[in-house]
């Protein structure tokens, strides 16, 4: 390139960038509010990301048809982040360029942490073009503790809260004597392992933690060696934060080796996991969640009927289980926040969300202002036969063992939040 053409190329690049920036700024004036969904749509966890996208598009349509968002419609932009923090930052950039002021993500707390930090930085540098990060599933407690920031809201119970629920339940189960922890080796799994030890020690000091394994994420093809270890340790209970193929393969290997233990999982009902686990998990796999399909059946109510109908309609439309009850809650709260604030400007919406109490069919939920963590009722359920709604055509579905009300799941926070003036 001659110096002259280089100069021309540079000026046109700058002109393009300015044009793009101008377009992004103009997005406020448009009729739709854009929300970018940044999750894996390829690679080993693509099935999880794809299912999340379907939940969003279904419930966005639902809320658009039922009142809309401050008179506007919400529009979903799905961007593949290949499960990688690096690609997520590129995705965030692209989302902002396309005029999105709301982003949502859930799979992988390492990705969540990167996004949360990037959003905060972006908002600091671009006060005219701010972004809110609505987290529907990344459960690392750090995101609402030391790493908290004003722009992040979490609609899933964090890992500590889920473990609080699990250990409260285990506290009253005298059969549990030896616990084995097995988790994926990244922030989420490490924190499950650490907190589980702490809480078990507090609530049932007589329980022995007989093993604690961390394994690389998505790289183990055969879990049999881990099963041999669990077997040899004499454990009667396994607590695991594993998800996707890493959970399915674990339970499958366990069943084929004839290992007789109870699994307390976060994601036993996670998309694709029940079918992969199959009959191997009957009566053995438990999960802690804010929703499963049989909840409205077990405690009938008018609002519950609406949810049950939504479940059936979702299943018919996508041949997929409606799994993320919290995505519905999140979009419902977003709708209410925008209506209350009479604006879709991120700071106004964030302020309306802070401290908001919202009624769901499962009970009231509250967005804690201190750390932007949602407190919602949690349920412990077991994978069994003979329930009204089976999951993923397996003939097995979830049956509630215990309910823990929202306030009872709350844990203390170390978050010191700086709010925009």
């Amino acid at each position, binding site marked *: 390139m001659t110096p002259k053409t280089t100069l021309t190329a540079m000026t046109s690049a700058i002109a393009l960038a300015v044009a793009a920036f101008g377009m992004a700024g103009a997005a406020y004036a448009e009729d739709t509010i854009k929300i970018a969904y940044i999750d894996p749509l390829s690679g*080993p966890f693509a099935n999880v990301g794809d299912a999340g996208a379907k939940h969003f598009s279904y419930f966005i349509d639902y809320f658009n048809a039922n009142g809309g968002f401050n008179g506007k419609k919400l529009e979903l932009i799905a961007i593949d982040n290949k499960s990688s923090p690096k690609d997520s930052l590129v995705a965030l950039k692209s989302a902002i360029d396309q005029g999105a002021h709301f982003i949502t993500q859930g799979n992988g707390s390492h990705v969540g942490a990167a996004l949360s930090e990037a959003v905060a930085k972006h908002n600091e540098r671009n006060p005219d073009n701010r972004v809110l990060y609505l987290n529907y599933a990344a459960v690392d407690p750090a995101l609402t503790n030391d790493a908290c920031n004003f722009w992040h809201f979490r609609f899933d119970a964090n890992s500590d809260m889920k473990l609080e629920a699990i250990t409260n339940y285990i506290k009253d189960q005298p059969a549990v004597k030896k616990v084995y922890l097995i988790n994926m080796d990244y922030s989420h799994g490490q924190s499950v392992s650490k907190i589980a030890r702490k809480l078990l020690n507090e609530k049932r000091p007589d329980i022995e933690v007989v093993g604690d394994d961390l*394994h690389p994420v998505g790289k183990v*093809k055969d879990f049999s060696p881990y099963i041999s270890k669990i077997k040899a340790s004499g454990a009667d209970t396994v607590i695991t934060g594993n998800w996707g193929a890493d959970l*399915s393969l674990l339970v499958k290997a366990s069943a*084929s080796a*004839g290992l007789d233990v109870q699994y307390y999982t976060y994601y036993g009902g996670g998309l694709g996991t029940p079918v992969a686990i199959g009959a191997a998990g009957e009566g053995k796999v438990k999960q802690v969640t804010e929703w499963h399909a049989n909840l409205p059946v077990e405690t009938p109510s008018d609002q519950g009927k609406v949810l049950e109908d939504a479940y059936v309609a979702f299943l018919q439309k996508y041949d997929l289980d409606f799994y993320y009850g919290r995505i519905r809650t999140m979009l419902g709260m977003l709708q209410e926040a925008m209506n209350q604030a009479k604006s879709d400007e991120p700071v106004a919406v964030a302020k309306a969300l802070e401290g908001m109490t919202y009624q769901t069919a499962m009970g009231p939920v509250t967005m804690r202002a201190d750390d932007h963590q949602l407190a919602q009722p949690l349920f412990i359920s077991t994978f069994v036969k003979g329930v009204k709604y089976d999951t993923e055509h397996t003939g097995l579905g979830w049956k509630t063992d215990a309910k823990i009300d929202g306030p009872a799941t709350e844990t203390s926070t170390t978050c010191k939040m700086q709010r925009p003036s």
Partner: protein
Amino acid sequence: MLEILVFSLLNGVLFGMLLFMLSSGLTLIFSMMGVLNFAHASFFMLGAYFAYQISTVTGFWIALILAPLLVGGIGMLIERYGLRRVHKYGHVAELLFTFGLAFLIEEIVVMIWGRIPVDYGVPADLNFTFFTLLGTNFPAYRAFILLIAVMMFAALFLTITRTRIGLIIQAALTHPDMVAALGHNVPRVFMMVFGGGTALAALAGVIGGPILVTEPGMAFLLGPIIFVVVVFGGMGSLGGAFVASLLIGVIQTLAVALDWSLGGTLAAIGINLPVDGFIGTFSRITVSQTAPILPYLMLVLMLIFRPKGLMGTRES
């Protein structure tokens, strides 16, 4: 401890055998034919999906035969109408072609069967416990995998080294002009070998599908490890691939059982490393945590110290 050791060995051999079934096809295609086939694991996945679909109609046993044949046929078509044209532009073109192919196959699988795993389980005939040792069950299906893998190795080895067909194949791969001059159709030999390689991958898929999860990400999950097997075992060597598979399977499985860490060992002899910071984190990593990445470490070391691999006959 004995229990862990025995079962780790058993499971290690089993995993090794599954790896071998997968990589034997790649040995033919990559290290003998010299085609850099990135899509090999995709044929493995196709095998699993085809077998699932066929088995819903005819049962497992017919699927076991039909699925590899179908995938082999597809492989031959791809060689005839795709790879053959690309081959003359060298390795980079091949790599790009098969790389694209891998994505294409994944997307096609997603379009037909969706992203959620399909319900492809162990066939009822083989769904029982073969033996129980020290309180742990060894499923019959795993024994079946071992049996098939051994049969496959024997058949492949004998075909390549002891038959006239094997002789022509070997000669065609190293001296194609001479073989062509003797009146053999070399392009057809290449097509058959490629088809055979993909059929072998598919057979591994048919058999591996029920114990792994049959979902669109499975090719991506297994893609890299089979290259490790082929390169570690040595280019052009079926025996090398066999030994490498077993080694990787057993080492990886045994490593899981070891909770040994640098910090823990030093603490046992009275040296306490700092708990926090980089050193603390590093010293607490256990061998079991690193197990699934050990094969890649082995690959890197092998390439540095013995580039032709365990039993390789060629340098590259």
